[in-house]
């Protein structure tokens, strides 16, 4: 192992890093700490992954721990399950959101259920990293947000960092989890930077966080819609409206305590994600908030997200994707009620 320190922070001080780099550092820290951690997937070795998240890992940890696989997603996840049965902790990279579906059967019928099937005797500490979401002008299958399709299945945990610092900690926490974690990385923000202090105390993996306090409307977001919500909140502030933004961070389990607490104050709630609104995560959030904050709500919970159409060609994606204007339009509506 080339890093030497084995402490997990590589002895670094605070540093401005991109999310891709933060993930790389998080993977390194986990691999240094625990020799059973493996990284596997397509093009993750010499190339370092198409987003360079695994850059340098093959060189530093060798190809027994950084496994360039054949081109077969079911094979990647299926063999990761077998490796987990042997005591390894594989971290699988799926190249793009749209290519996770060949592995869907292994994920939902095997990975999600093996612990239950074996009455807890086989644990499945497998992480599946999925770069997700749009906004990068890509071709088909490279811009989708499939999180609801995983969160509906018990046995999986699903999380999504919205910034580099969370990414650094959350990937390590996901790897440490004895349960399988589907790890959604908002690809359009891979190159966004933040100040990372590896000596800081990490926030719990499955906890939501208020990332901007406010008083008029509660905006619930995760992954790529968090920066969006923050931008919308800035714009709203100029118009004299105060948005409270909650970053869910964990999609399953869902931590709605901060949302409910917030809605009890604001009486208004808007949920935003890139996935289609229909049966997207926002449906669950809206259903729960509507139930639990029934007497506090001054207006219906509104959802802002993708339309009920296939993710469109790149020149239409700015129309498809929720943007700050669409979010603010919903804010107007809940405030006008």
């Amino acid at each position, binding site marked *: 192992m080339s890093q030497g320190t084995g402490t997990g922070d590589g002895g670094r001080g605070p540093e401005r890093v991109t999310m891709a780099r933060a993930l790389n550092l998080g993977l390194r820290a986990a691999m240094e700490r625990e020799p059973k951690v493996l990284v596997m997937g397509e093009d993750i070795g010499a190339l370092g992954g198409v987003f360079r998240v695994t850059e340098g890992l093959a060189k530093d940890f060798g190809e027994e721990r950084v496994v360039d696989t054949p081109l077969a997603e079911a*094979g990647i996840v*299926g*063999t990761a399950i*077998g490796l987990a049965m042997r005591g390894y902790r594989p971290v699988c990279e799926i190249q793009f959101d749209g290519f996770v579906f060949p592995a869907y059967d*292994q994920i939902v019928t095997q990975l999600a259920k093996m*612990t*239950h099937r074996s009455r807890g005797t086989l644990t499945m500490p497998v992480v599946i990293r999925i770069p997700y979401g749009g906004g990068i002008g890509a071709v088909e299958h490279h811009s989708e947000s499939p999180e609801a399709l995983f969160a509906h299945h018990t046995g999986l945990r699903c999380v999504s960092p919205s910034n580099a610092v969370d990414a650094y900690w959350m990937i390590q926490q996901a790897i440490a989890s004895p*349960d399988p974690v589907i790890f959604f990385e908002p690809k359009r923000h891979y190159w966004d930077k933040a100040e990372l202090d590896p000596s800081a105390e990490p926030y719990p993996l499955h906890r939501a966080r208020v990332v901007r306090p406010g008083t008029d409307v509660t905006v619930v977001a995760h992954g790529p819609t968090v920066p969006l919500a923050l931008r919308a909140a800035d714009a709203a502030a100029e118009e004299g409206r105060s948005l409270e933004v909650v970053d869910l961070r964990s999609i399953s389990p869902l931590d709605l305590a901060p949302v409910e607490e917030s809605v009890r104050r604001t009486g208004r709630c808007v949920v935003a994600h890139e996935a289609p609104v229909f049966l997207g995560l926002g449906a669950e959030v809206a259903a729960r908030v509507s139930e639990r904050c029934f007497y506090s709500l001054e207006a219906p919970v509104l959802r802002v997200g993708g339309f009920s159409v296939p993710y469109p060609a790149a020149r239409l994606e700015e129309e498809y994707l929720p943007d700050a204007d669409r979010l603010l339009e919903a804010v107007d509506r809940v405030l006008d009620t």
Partner: protein
Amino acid sequence: MTSSTGRTATASTPSAAGGAPAAAGPMHVVQMLTPDGRRVDHEEDPALAAHAATLTAEDLRGMYRDMALARRVDVEATALQRQGELGLWASLLGQEAAQVGSARATLPQDRLFPTYREHAVAMVRGVDPAHVLSLFRGVDRGGWDVEATGVSPYALVIGSQTLHATGYAMGVQRDGAVGTGDPARDACVLAYFGDGASSQGDVNEAFVFATAYQAPVVFVCQNNQWAISVPAERQTRVPIAQRASGFGFPGVRVDGNDVVACYAVVRAAAERARAGEGPTLVEAFTYRMGAHTTSDDPGRYRPSVEVEQWRARDPLTRLEAHLRRDHGADDAFFADVAREGDTAASRLRRAVLEMPDPEPGSMFDHAYAAEHPQVEEERAWYAAYLAGLDGEEGRTA
């Protein structure tokens, strides 16, 4: 041994198709016991002959015992299902030799990945059959100790386990437990699947991964010639063993009703795997004598004459004839085994009838390994709900 290649050779051509099967050609079938129990040598491959030669009379009696016990348990399970004590049963009838021969070729450190029909495999590895029946009773998903027995949970999604087996084997490699030459250390993995499963993408991806990394896995395909109602020719026009060559690793077809040959062939493949020489595909050519499961009605799709033909190649009769002829086994031995089987069967019956129903609310256990707030919330809600119902009959009952 033309008999066991017979079906493939006479495969009917689907009507939408044009020409004849390509590259079919007969494939050699390894056989060491003839259907009437004569021991024949296998001259092509001295290693196989050597493995078979290690089998003592005691070993062969042990194999018979394993096969007979498995069959007796199978009969009892079918009866229990008929009596409503099991929800379902998947009989292994006819496949005892393939299962016992292959499982007996494993070492304690090996790991086996069964489907839902490998009851004899499980028993050879020390799984209490009651733990198998708990699955079919609907009490749990199978209650045996995976680590102690080396037997993975039964896999019900066809083919899924072959990838797990391959991944496990990749882990064995990473643990340095192949090719050391230490017989107590070097390990391999057996991946069981059926003729129908050979069509699944997962199984073929397992072949890809196994060869890519030369993983120590032996793929054991029990070609029992039927996937529920679909004959093996719908899955492939050539012997399944031949599939391996297309992926660049060896494939062997063995008489699946010949326990000696199954043992020798799987042992050779297992030793190859443990030595770090990579995967092998073993196709045990056998026959599903019973229904697919107790829910099935094979009268709808296959002629009983086919079943009758295969009865003449019964794996137990074959080994019995061999033991009587060459190893002095007498009526007393077989009566002993039968008695032992009856004892096991009644013990099993009792165990099944005494199985407690799972605790109410236990469905919330083990959904996750670590605490999960939503599961706990629902568990609490459900407990309160049950408490609220307490005594009440149910309003629609």
